[in-house]
């Protein structure tokens, strides 16, 4: 028991929390932006897989790591455009279109990966992002290694939360995005095109999701393999509800889940007699539990999942 508590005091646990949270932060932020504009993007699991593959492959083919991240963002935005084309002007079921995008993006990722890479006994690797120790700050006991010795994409994710929160809450652009999700007719009345705003938001959101995926292959691991996203996308969808559609709370939620994930990994070595699968189930079950606990508090954007057609009510 005391050993289980001791783990809580180790810097390596908390550093791992931030690392594990990074793809969840980016994915949840991306899903949140889409949903604030009124579009549920269930393509997330596939788009994260695509980002993981594109990011890795770009680096494997000789580009540098940041080009890999940028390429992942670009292809994420492209698949966001596809999702938006199906759901925004055409008004197809956002559930079904999103699932279609997920299946398409992940199978295409596996196909392209196998096409380019000869896979032998173990998948080939790249040289991933190294922890970036911030001079001076990383020497602070405990806080240093936790906060100031992460890889660059983790800092990027934290910055993205602040930027998204600011843009959504304080800028005319953010207001337009929120209006597109709450009341597209009001957007129209302002002389803006709600469908254009929705399309743009889905593209930006999907780019963030793909970068979240790319983090897995360029920073957390150094190779790509099928099914590596492992439901993180779906957990992000749950996190958005948990966060009541607020970026700051999405960050908090991602950290909370990453904490359980990091802690269960370490607890496995301490607690004997339980099958290891019980620990692995915890993050998924907690996602469901969190959804139940907060589902009545948060209010989804009014026009979420309602396609907008001019002149139709």
């Amino acid at each position, binding site marked *: 028991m005391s050993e289980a508590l001791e783990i809580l005091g180790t810097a390596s646990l908390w550093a791992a929390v931030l690392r594990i949270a990074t793809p969840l932060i980016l994915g949840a932020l991306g899903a949140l932006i889409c949903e604030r504009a009124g579009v549920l993007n269930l393509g997330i699991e596939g788009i994260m897989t695509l980002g993981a593959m594109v990011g890795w492959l770009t680096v494997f083919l000789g580009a540098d790591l940041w080009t890999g991240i940028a390429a992942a963002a670009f292809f994420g935005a492209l698949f966001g455009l596809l999702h938006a084309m199906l759901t925004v002007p055409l008004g197809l079921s956002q559930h*079904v279109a999103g699932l279609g995008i997920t299946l398409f993006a992940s199978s295409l990722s596996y196909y392209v990966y196998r096409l380019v890479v000869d896979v032998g006994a173990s998948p080939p690797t790249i040289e991933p992002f190294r922890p970036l120790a911030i001079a001076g700050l990383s020497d602070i006991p405990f806080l240093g290694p936790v906060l100031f010795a992460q890889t660059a994409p983790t800092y990027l994710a934290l910055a993205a939360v602040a930027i998204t929160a600011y843009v959504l809450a304080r800028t005319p652009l953010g207001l337009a995005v929120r209006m597109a999700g709450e009341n597209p007719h009001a957007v129209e009345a302002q002389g803006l095109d709600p469908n254009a705003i929705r399309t743009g938001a889905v593209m930006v959101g999907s780019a963030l999701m793909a970068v979240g995926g790319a983090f897995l292959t360029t920073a957390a691991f150094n190779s790509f393999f099928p099914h590596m996203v492992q439901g993180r996308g779906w957990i992000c969808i749950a996190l958005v509800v948990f966060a009541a559609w607020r970026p700051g709370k999405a960050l908090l939620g991602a950290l909370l889940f990453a904490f359980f994930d990091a802690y269960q990994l370490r607890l496995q070595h301490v607690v004997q007699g339980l099958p290891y699968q019980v620990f692995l189930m915890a993050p998924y079950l907690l996602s469901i539990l969190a959804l139940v606990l907060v589902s009545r508090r948060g209010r989804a954007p009014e026009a979420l999942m309602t396609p907008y057609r001019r002149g139709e009510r």
Partner: protein
Amino acid sequence: MRLERRADVPLALAATAPLGAILAALALSGVLIAAAGANPLEAYAAMLHGAFGSRLAITETLARATPLILTGLAAAVAFRARLWNIGGEGQLYMGALAAVWLGHSALVGLPPALGILVMMLAGMAAGAALLIGPVILRVRFGVDEVVTTLLLNFVVILFVGMMIEGPLRDPLAFGWPQSVPVDDGLLLPKLVERTRLHIGLLVAAGAALVVWVIAARTVFGMRTRAAGLSPRAAAFAGVSLPRTLVGVGLLSGALAGLAGAIEVAGLKGYVTTDLSPGYGYAGIVVAMLAALNPIGVVASALFVAVAFVGADAMSRAVGTPSFIADVIVSVSLLTMLVALLFTSYRIRR
């Protein structure tokens, strides 16, 4: 440009749209096949040959279609009521696990027909049970069932792993993680000797017929459709949405569970964590390709089975990665969505 709902759908359009969608999907996937340095026409020929070219190929395609019909039906009945059950994969595994659990010893000694029947019912019950939680969360708390059913898939796979390494572990499997086997007397009879085709195909086809009758000819089917078309109007007409969704959920989960029980008793006889190569997820595509029509599900399950079985032959013949099957199937889903849209809407400038 705007979309306008058609007053009535021309039959010719309704019939050709799915065909057009599949042709478009094959053309788009052809680009990827060409990217692999192969001739797409040659590749598709190899695919068709691999799926239909011999007696063994045909039986294999039908065997592969069997679970797809059932998971497709599971998705179709749920989607008709706009219950987004994406948990078919987990429900399938629960059904398989229940079948093995009972079929290993509890049912031994019963007349085989009775034993098999009980085993199938157990699979259905297990699959249905797995959906009760998500449906209750949906109707009581408004929790989106997409996320809950999906996350449960991951939980169930881990649970299966736990069972086959623990209480249901086969001690005679030389350390391979696999479950105890179903008793030999309870294995499903073969339809064609010395192939993998078993009577599960007939069960699946029968299930399609039953689901069609339920959907088209019963009050429950009518309520389901009403709930799917407009929950608000349905409630106004006196249809209880919670009760309808619970009924739909139980039926949907039971069908996916049956897929698992049939797969395990028809083919391997034991459960592993790779029993299903994603039949639960493919079932979603099967249902959508069929425009949620239960009879159409049989046809689209066959199409998906052809893609899966044929892609292996294609890979051997022209060297494309076998993931091409999933690409063809998922692109078909997207093109079909667009095709269906244009059968019910027309474009006005």
